[in-house]
């Protein structure tokens, strides 16, 4: 019989290597899945992992990695702080939408005035939009003890309805020939989150994501607030004993993750997307949850995981178009990654041991 035995100390070696082992296991079982679909598994894996980075059209795909990775990292960093403290914001998708609506709305309010001050105002409005949306579950939890998982998740659907409403009404392009969707911010210079260096995919959102990584790292490792966040997640009673105010921590964690998700939405709507439209959101807010865990809730890990996730997205699209793999197979593949990561995570704190049958 096989038993799990708790390690006296969390294993550092396993903690570092589980993401790698999980990726390898995903490649292997994903390969089996693709083989079962009648595709050449080696070719499929190569298309997903190799093609975007070093393939023939890598010059096009590499900037896409930054464009896809930045919002994932930005959102996941915010979520990870809450997850560390046991505060589960599942509604980043909604906060992302609200950030985009508020940020784009603030910019379009100035149209057609040009000025250096417009983009910073949009950034602030975007962050505030996401923050305010996240404060709803936060305040309800602090005041009435509601479950933040349910409330934040349900608010995603409310945000989607709002998005549809403003796309068809408030923010609709008056010169858009009746089509839904706002003016294109890409053609409004003061509000355009343009590439900082031509052809690199590097826009302000990427800068924001990197700053968020550094900020989160310093917060968690060098600051009392970060220590309290970790303490609350590991031993809530000890945190209370240490003097942590749980309500303030909930407001901080949900507020910050909302603000970062809002920023991600703003950078997306003012840059790569350009338009507030009904189908603006593509699930970054949910994928960021996977990214946060894949990165083991560690800022540097999240940076790497965001890159990896962006890679599977882009590689997955290439595989869809070149090999005719169904989109669902790519989603299963991404799901496998999270599954293996969480399963292998167990080995950090437990070891597997073959044992005689013994009742204990």
């Amino acid at each position: 019989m096989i038993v799990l035995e708790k390690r006296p100390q969390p294993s550092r070696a396993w903690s570092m290597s589980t993401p790698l082992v999980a990726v390898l296991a995903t490649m292997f079982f994903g390969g089996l899945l693709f083989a079962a679909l009648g595709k050449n598994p080696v070719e499929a894996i190569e298309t997903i992992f190799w093609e975007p980075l070093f393939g023939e059209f890598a010059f096009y795909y590499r900037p896409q990695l930054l464009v896809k990775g930045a919002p994932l990292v930005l959102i996941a960093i915010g979520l990870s702080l809450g997850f560390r403290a046991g505060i589960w914001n599942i509604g980043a998708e909604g906060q992302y939408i609200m950030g985009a609506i508020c940020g784009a709305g603030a910019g379009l309010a100035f149209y057609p005035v040009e000025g250096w001050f417009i983009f910073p105002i949009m950034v602030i409005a975007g962050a505030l939009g996401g923050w305010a949306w996240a404060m709803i579950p936060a305040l309800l939890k602090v005041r009435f003890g509601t479950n933040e998982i349910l409330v934040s998740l349900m608010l995603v659907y409310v945000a989607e309805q709002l998005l549809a409403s403003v796309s068809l009404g408030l923010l609709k392009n008056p010169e858009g020939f009746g089509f839904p969707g706002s003016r294109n911010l890409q053609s409004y210079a003061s509000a355009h989150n343009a590439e900082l260096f031509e052809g690199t995919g590097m826009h302000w959102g990427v800068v924001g994501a990197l700053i968020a990584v550094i900020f989160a790292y310093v917060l968690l490792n060098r600051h009392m607030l970060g220590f309290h966040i970790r303490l609350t997640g590991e031993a809530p009673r000890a945190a209370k004993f240490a003097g942590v105010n749980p309500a303030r921590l909930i407001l901080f964690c949900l507020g910050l993750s909302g603000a970062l998700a809002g920023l991600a939405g703003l950078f997306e709507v003012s840059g790569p997307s350009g338009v507030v439209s009904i189908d603006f959101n593509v699930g970054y807010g949910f994928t960021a949850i996977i990214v946060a865990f894949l990165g083991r809730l560690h800022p540097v890990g999240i940076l790497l995981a965001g890159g990896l996730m962006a890679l599977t997205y882009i590689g997955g699209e290439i595989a869809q178009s070149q090999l005719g793999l169904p989109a669902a197979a790519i989603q299963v593949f991404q799901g496998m990654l999270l599954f293996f990561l969480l399963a292998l995570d167990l080995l950090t704190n437990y070891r597997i041991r073959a044992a005689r049958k013994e009742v204990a």
Partner: protein
Amino acid sequence: MTTPLLSLQGLTKAYPGVVANDNVSFDIGEGEVHALLGENGAGKSTLVKMIYGLVKPDSGTMLLRGQPYAPPEPRAARADGIAMVFQHFSLFDALNVAENIALGMENPPPMGDLASRIREVSETYGLPLDPYRTVGDLSAGERQRVEIIRCLLQDPKLLIMDEPTSVLTPQEVEILFETLQKLRAEGTSILYISHKLEEIRTLCDHATILRLGKNVGECTPRETSARDMAELMVGTALQTPQRAGRDFGEVALDISGLSVPSPTEFGTALKNVHLTVRKGEVLGIGGVAGNGQDELLGVLSGEIQTAADAVKMAGQPVGRLGPTARRRLGLLTAPEERLGHAAAPDMSLTENALLTGSVREGLESNGFLKWNDTRSFAERIIKAFDVRTPGPENAARSLSGGNLQKFVIGREVLQNPEVLVVNQPTWGVDAAAAAAIRQAILDLASKGAAVVCISQDLDELMEISDSFAALNEGRLSAPRPTTGLTVEEIGLMMGGAHGMEVAHV
């Protein structure tokens, strides 16, 4: 010579890194009360788990009435007439007594029959118990009766009791002993595990002493002094804590008219608690576990907030202050539950040193942490309190209970508190370390700190405290000077026998 009921021969059990039992042999006779003595970690629990079929020995054999006996699981042990009352009760608070007992049976009879059998057994042995009462409402002594009756319903030949008196008042202990003596008179053997020597001298016919997993001696307790048994247990001569005669200063901590509901459902509300502690004074608070100890500690640590002037430090109201503000004023606390409350299990000792030390040790500036200073603070605790660990980077959960306790107490003591509140400071700690902790508490008091020591170990309280009060169902008795208090008086302060009656022998 008659065949013993149970004969253990060369039992050995090793766990990774430690030999829990090393070639242990002894016999338990029919109708004998046999004591198993030893410090925490001496291997008593492992030994009885082998007898009860929870753990399989690596080598060695057991004979039950001359027949080979090797229970693969507790069910087999119970079928052979061996029953056990655990130190920690496994009862469901929300169910009633009969339901709890039925849960532990293979084929529970209909509830009505079971209830009448419970009444019958409980009356025979002087352990009155209403089968339909909810367990959540019972005192610790009554809960123990549920466990004992659960065993007696099986009509056992050998009853194993693991530290049964640790949760009882002196009067309840007396009643338990009468019950056990009645059982012995009927021919039931009892294996009695304890480290309370006086108890063993009153009750037991024979004693086996374990130290570091080995059988280091047997004796007849009635003919051996408690001190001799203690030295066999510990292996060295014991050091009794010394205290100098002290003068008390002004009032350092003052609680008046404090009533708070418990934050947990089956907790105990504090009702109109008054107490004062002067500088240099050690106030001992006794009482059976679950009578408001955790709540009292929470009120003092700042985890439970009260009306501002219900709790005062040197005349200043602190009832509304949180834990950090109170630490700044010098009110430090050490809760009973080490893992998860006093310390975060998966965090390093350095991080755990930061947990309460940040304010007084200046381990942060503008919110930024000084890890180097924190590490050296952790190292100071480890050194001063002889915490056995390779270093401060190790996780708290990797320490043994006693070592972690030394760390937790040391962390507060080294911060030079004005008022120190400790709950169960030496619980689960070996005798030498317990003596060191008590000495540290006394030293702190002689330097002028006020100390509140909440404990269930009456001997400990008598040893270190200047005055004594007891918690009973959330009420605190009026404190009295320790000198001259008799065991009977203490027992009455603790709430007497909680309505128990003596066995009708």
